């Protein structure tokens, strides 16, 4: 199943099951979605429920909040995470806070989907990862779908939740063919142990999952160890229990993220680990993240700005050797 098909199926099924589910955003309707995620939905559910909006992100999210107040379950699509900055006021000042500042009277069942990350030479204004912003906001739930299974079940769960959810996708994943594993008792807030190992825990999410998996054979063979890979799935809340179990076993942790290192999401994860698991650690935690520069256009520079399988392997091997592995 293609990643984008998994998303499409999730939306389609939720729209079929519940008339109050609507989708809105730029080009989501007649055009079929700029990444074809909403393909076919306009024909099936009509203009009332598949809403083409103007290029006005503030209004896309603001309108969606109003719809949610009126009893609908809107799914707002923002074409890229980068454009969501135009809607930050609506997301943070309104969606995230209404329940709290109304003393629990307001409910905003809203899902905001947005793809991010470095795709291919889209340059600085179309390549960022801003999970660090959204995960810092109380009142928001932040999910990150790295695979078709989570895309499908996670998005369905997000739509069903009675709180605003930032649903992060990655542009490079849309056309990828992926294995779909049917789930029972799916928990959207649970991290996935992608691969078991006993000497090192690598925490990752979104597209970096695949870069990490590519780096693993080199790391394992060179250091003669086995590596455990944890895909977070849910960034807020963070599944500390899975992380804790893994680190109690491996005693070492690295996080691989595509966003910038300074103030990046990995900083939060490592901070939590340092606070809660300090005496479990047999080595200082390692962060592998993007460079602290805007994403450049040139392909060589672009690849130099983010982690790649080769760089991941190199850094972990070097770090492992310096830290008793």
């Amino acid at each position, binding site marked *: 199943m293609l990643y984008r098909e998994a998303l499409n199926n999730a939306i389609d099924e939720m729209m079929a099951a519940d008339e109050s589910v609507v989708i809105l955003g730029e080009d989501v309707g007649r055009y*079929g979605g700029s*990444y*074809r995620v909403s393909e076919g939905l306009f024909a099936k559910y009509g203009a009332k429920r598949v809403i083409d909006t103007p290029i006005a992100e503030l209004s896309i999210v603001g309108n969606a909040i109003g719809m949610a107040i009126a009893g609908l379950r809107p799914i707002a699509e923002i074409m890229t995470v980068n454009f969501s900055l135009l809607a930050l006021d609506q997301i943070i000042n309104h969606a995230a806070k209404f329940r709290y500042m109304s003393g629990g009277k307001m409910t905003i069942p809203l899902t905001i989907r947005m793809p991010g990350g470095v*795709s291919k030479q889209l340059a600085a204004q179309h390549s960022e990862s801003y999970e660090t912003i959204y995960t810092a906001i109380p009142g928001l739930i932040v999910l990150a779908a790295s695979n078709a299974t989570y895309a499908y079940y996670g998005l369905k769960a997000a739509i069903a939740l009675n709180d605003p959810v930032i649903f992060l996708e990655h542009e490079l994943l*849309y056309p990828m063919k992926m294995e779909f594993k049917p789930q029972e008792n799916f928990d959207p807030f649970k991290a996935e142990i992608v691969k078991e190992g006993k000497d090192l825990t690598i925490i990752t999410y979104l597209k970096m999952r695949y870069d990490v998996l590519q780096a693993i054979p080199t790391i394992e063979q060179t250091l003669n160890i086995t590596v455990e890979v944890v895909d977070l799935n849910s960034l807020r809340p963070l599944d500390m229990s899975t992380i804790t179990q893994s680190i109690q076993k491996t005693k070492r942790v690295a996080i691989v993220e595509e966003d910038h290192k300074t103030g990046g999401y990995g900083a939060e994860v490592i901070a939590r680990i340092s606070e809660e698991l300090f*005496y479990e650690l047999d*080595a200082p935690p390692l962060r592998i993240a993007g460079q602290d520069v805007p994403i450049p256009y040139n392909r*060589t520079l672009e690849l130099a*700005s983010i982690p790649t399988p080769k760089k991941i392997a190199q850094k972990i091997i070097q770090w492992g050797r310096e830290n*008793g592995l």
Partner: protein
Amino acid sequence: MDYKIVMPVLSDTMQKGKLIRWRVHEGDRVHKGDVIAEVESDKAIMEVQTFQDGIVKKLLVKEGEEVPIQTPIAIIETDTNKKEALKPQQPQTSISPKEEPSTVPPVIQELLTTSPHPLPQGEASAAAKKRAAELGIDIQKLHSQKQLPTPAHLHDIEEIALKRYFTPKALKLLQDYNIDPKTFRKNHKITDQEVMSYIKEHNIPYSVPLSANRKAVIQTVEYAAKKPIYFVFETFVLKKVPNYKITAILLKKLGDVMQKHPLTRAKLEQEYLKIYPHSNISVAVAKGEELYMVVCKNIEEKSLEEINIWLQEIKDKTYIPQDLLGSTFGISNLGMFGIERFSAMINKDDVGIAAFGALQDNTIAVTFTFDHRILNGLDAAKFIQDCKKAFQGEENV
């Protein structure tokens, strides 16, 4: 001049494109900007234009076909007069887009070279310190005695702890029997006797890892056990020949008889019985703990002398795969252990095997195991009859 139109890259994520519809036919005249085809990217259906005037010479891709990006999909023959005019201004057109990447600018090399990590500060990791405290190990003292590396990690502490509480022999036992050191209360020095009595008390097995050869033997015998086999029991006359091994005599006699019975030189392969010209017999050879089925080849061409020497040599040889392949029959001899009679498992896809017992009063008990798919009872009887004759007729040797 040919102008190639390629499957365009229409999105940052596009890898392949599907040709939905041709808007032109071969032979059509096209002008710069004309739409020539519709292709489907991962995002949408898009139009493909020509950026040169000319005549459609060839359409290279069928409608509905999917091709990787940058694959030529059509060739336009451009007008000659225009080509001349354009040529000097477009020297790049002859250079393929997949040129060598330009050298990385110095600023990036700076980014790429990971500055060497400074070694972590501190005497031990957090986990190592916690464990040391639990075990009452003084890290600073051990550092001053140079018994611990800096920084110390968890496994360094565990090692110190083990040395502190277990004698070296006791540690070896823990390793050999795969026992968790936590099993023992660490309030005194633990000796190998204490560990051994623990092992006996709990009947803990000593684990021997399977060798590659043993794994192969297991596979072979499991395979053999599934074959439709039957046994024939016989007693042959055999006189010992001085200076020759009994196995050498057995090999020579059987090998010669096999030449008269093609099915004993056969292998079953799918729809065919493949009959080989040579008498190749696998012989069970014990080497240390391991058992090998080494193949004695071309026996009918070898003298008893040569076979005797071969048997000597293989004892000390390190086998290569060829030494263990190519047999159609097998021999196992347990006579030297005084075993009177036994039966053997057929080796790999051999036709059968002859198991020889001990030589007693110039007779030797033999049990044949045959694969009925290749050799039936009648064939076997004839083969054994000839064997019997050969064993009686001493003059051959």
